C-alpha cells in the first residue's frame, strides 16, 4: 500500500478499470480519500476515459452480424487436406516437389495453377436463383475481368509480371453459374499449359450450366463442386480420368493480356 507516496498513473488506471484485486482496490481507494492530489488526478483520468469512450461509442455505427457462409466454406476446405491445392502443402514438401520438377526438366509453373490456392480463392457466388442464373446472357457470361481486379489477383498469387497470353484470369465459379466478380473467386489459370487448363474448365462449365438449367443438377451442388475441386468434378461428370480431346481444343474465353 503506497501510504507514503502518491499513486502512480498506471496504478490509477488499474484502479479505474477494475484491474486489481478487491484488497488492493480497497487500500488504494482509502489512499484517495486522504490524498487530494491523487484524488484530483484520479478524477481527471476517469473523466478523460469517460469522455473518450462516449465519443468512441457515438462514432460506432451499429452493424448487423456479418454473413458467415464464406468463412464456413473456407473452414470446410481447410479441414479436408485432399481439397487443398498444391500451394497448401508444407514448405518442406513444396521444396522437394520444386526440386523434383527441376530435376526432371519440368518448368515449375507446369504443376502450379490448374487448381487455385483455396486460401486465396475459396470460390464466391452471388445470391442468385436458378431462374436468374439461367437467364444470364452470353454478354454477362463472357464479360472481361476488370484490369485492377486482375492485377490484384496476380499480386495475391505473387506473379509480378505475368507473361502475355499465358493465363486466363478465370472464375472458380463461373459468372454463368452465379460466380461473383470478387478476388475470392478469381485466379490466374494457365491458359494452354498442362492437360487441366482453362479451356477444359470452360467446357465443363458449359456442360454443368446445361444440366442446371434443364433441372438435372442443383445449382448449389454445382457451385460447391467447382469451389471444391473442378478437376474432380470434370472427371466425375464426364466419367474420364483425362480431358476429352474435343475439350482440350475448346476455345471460349481469351487469355489475359
Amino acid at each position, binding site marked *: 500500500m503506497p501510504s507514503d507516496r502518491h499513486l502512480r498513473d498506471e496504478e490509477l488506471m488499474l484502479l479505474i478499470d477494475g484491474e486489481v484485486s478487491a484488497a488492493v482496490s480497497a487500500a488504494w481507494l482509502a489512499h484517495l480519500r486522504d490524498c487530494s492530489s491523487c484524488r484530483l488526478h484520479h478524477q481527471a483520468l476517469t473523466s478523460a476515459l469517460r469522455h473518450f469512450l462516449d465519443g468512441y461509442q457515438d462514432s*460506432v455505427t451499429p452493424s448487423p452480424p456479418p454473413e458467415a457462409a464464406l468463412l464456413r466454406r473456407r473452414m470446410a476446405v481447410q479441414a479436408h487436406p485432399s481439397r487443398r491445392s498444391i500451394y497448401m502443402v508444407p514448405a518442406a514438401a513444396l521444396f522437394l516437389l520444386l526440386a523434383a520438377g527441376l530435376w526432371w526438366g519440368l518448368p515449375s509453373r507446369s504443376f502450379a495453377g490448374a487448381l487455385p490456392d483455396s486460401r486465396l480463392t475459396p470460390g464466391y457466388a452471388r445470391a442468385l436463383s436458378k431462374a436468374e442464373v439461367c437467364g444470364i446472357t452470353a454478354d454477362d457470361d463472357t464479360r472481361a475481368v476488370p484490369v485492377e481486379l486482375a492485377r490484384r489477383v496476380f499480386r495475391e498469387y505473387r506473379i509480378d509480371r505475368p507473361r502475355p497470353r499465358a493465363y486466363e484470369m478465370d472464375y472458380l465459379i463461373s459468372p454463368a453459374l452465379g460466380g461473383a466478380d470478387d478476388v475470392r473467386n478469381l485466379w490466374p489459370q494457365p491458359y494452354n499449359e498442362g492437360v487441366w487448363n482453362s479451356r477444359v474448365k470452360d467446357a465443363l462449365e458449359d456442360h454443368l450450366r446445361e444440366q442446371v438449367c434443364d433441372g438435372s443438377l442443383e445449382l448449389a451442388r454445382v457451385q460447391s463442386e467447382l469451389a471444391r475441386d473442378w478437376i474432380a468434378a470434370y472427371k466425375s461428370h464426364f466419367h474420364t480420368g483425362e480431358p476429352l480431346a474435343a475439350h482440350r481444343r475448346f476455345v471460349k474465353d481469351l487469355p489475359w493480356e
Partner: protein
Amino acid sequence: MSSDAWQLVSSLLNRTSSGAPGLTIEDEVTLLYRELHASLLRYLASLGLPAAEAEDIVQETFLHLFEHLRRQKPRHNLRGWLFRVARNLGRKRAALLRRSPIDAVDDPASLRCHSTTDPEEMAAWNRRQAHLANVVQALPERDRSCLLLRAEGLRYREIAEALDISLGTVASSLARSLGKLDTVNRS
C-alpha cells in the same frame, strides 16, 4: 445478440480448456466471428487498412483461429490472441500495400456516419469526432492501439496479449493517452 448467445460467446472467450459441449469447432469460430467481426474491422482500420483489405484479414484471422482450435492449442485469452493475429496480418498487409499503392485508393474501413438529420447537431457531432480523431491519430501507434482496444472492451490482459506488451505497459500507455486527451479537453 440474445442474452443466451452472449453468454455462450463469453464462455468461449473465457474458457481455458476444451470447447463448448455440443458445438463443433466450426460453430465456435462462427459465433466468435459474428461477435468480434466489427471490433476487428475497426481495429484494422486504425492501422490504416482499406475496408476490403480489413475484411480479408478478419477472415484470415478466423481461419487461423480455426486451425488453432483444431490443433487443440491453448484456449486462454482467445480475444487477445485474435487481435494479435489480426494485428500481425494487418501490419504485413499494410507493408505490402505501401509497396503496391494501387489498392490504397480503396475506401477506408473507418468511414462512419451519424443518424441525426439536424444540420447543427450534425455539424457539432462532426467537429467533435474530427477533433477526437485528430488527437487519437497523433498518438504513437502503441498508445493508439491500447486506447482503441480498451474502447472495444478488451481487458488489460487481452490488450497485453494483443500487442505483446506487459500489463503495466498497458496501464501506463492508457494513462499517458488519457492525460493528453484531458489536456486537450480542458483547452
